């Protein structure tokens, strides 16, 4: 547990604090994030998990970890492709913002920590981070991105992504429980 706690804390606190800091925006008439900024956060959040998966593919030899990483890469790529197609259709250009920058900054630290590990320690760190990351992203999508999105098509896409994220979380917990203690 000592090994994984920093990962979980880092990612969870980072994203959830971002969500919490954005909460007052719900009470305001103008949302804190524009649709272009929501689109940017969505793409960045998906890309971060693809990057984690690619690290896992290079570092792990555990079949369950490799299978999970492959699923994360293909699913999150599919979501990015649909988001890209939608913003193109809507004529919206994803706009970099404080939330996406924070996500990227924290992800760099997590990637560095993951790369420093190997073997069973890596597998545990990777899957613990996946559990924490998906919990945090689900909270962010449901609590921040969906409520702040004005365009109905973008909102619908985000709503469709939530069941996939929840399935990923369930899958990650299953792999986590299966890893040798």
């Amino acid at each position: 547990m000592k090994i994984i706690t920093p990962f979980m804390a880092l990612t969870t606190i980072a994203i959830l604090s971002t969500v919490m800091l954005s909460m007052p925006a719900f009470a305001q008439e103008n949302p804190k994030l524009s649709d272009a900024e929501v689109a940017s956060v969505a793409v960045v959040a998906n890309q971060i998990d693809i990057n984690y998966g690619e690290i896992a593919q290079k570092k792990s030899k555990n079949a369950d970890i490799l299978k999970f990483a492959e699923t994360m890469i293909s699913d999150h790529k599919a979501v990015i492709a649909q988001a890209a197609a939608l913003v193109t259709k809507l004529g919206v250009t994803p706009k970099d913002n404080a939330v996406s920058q924070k996500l990227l900054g924290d992800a760099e630290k997590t990637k560095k920590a993951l790369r420093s590990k190997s073997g069973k320690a890596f597998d545990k760190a990777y899957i613990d981070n996946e559990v924490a990351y998906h919990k945090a992203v689900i909270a962010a999508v449901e609590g921040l991105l969906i409520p702040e999105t004005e365009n109905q098509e973008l909102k619908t896409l985000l709503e469709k992504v939530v069941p996939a994220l929840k399935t990923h979380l369930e899958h990650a917990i299953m792999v986590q429980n299966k890893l040798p203690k």
Partner: protein
Amino acid sequence: MRTSLSILKNCIYLLCSIFLLNSCASETKKHIPKIYTVEIKQMKFQPAELVVQKGDTVVWINNDIVAHDVTEESSKAWTSSLMPVGQSWSLVVTQSADYYCSIHVVMKGKLVVQ
């Protein structure tokens, strides 16, 4: 005596005819295959459990946002292989089976042959 034998023969013919007709009718009933659809949506097989008869066809259609597959769970006896978004796959059901998506292993479904 001849009349009695003739009546008996006719009765036997009649019974045989009724039996044959009845058999044909029930055979016909058994072999009208139905087609069922299972929609893959929101990371679920909908319906998750389907009751069918042997020889019925089940069509799975992927209306989700990511690719899936449909794979028999216990011995991988059959699989759809990768089903991209919008694609469908069908199976003539011969026996009950538990199945799952081998990509998203927590997604499960069941076919029950009556």
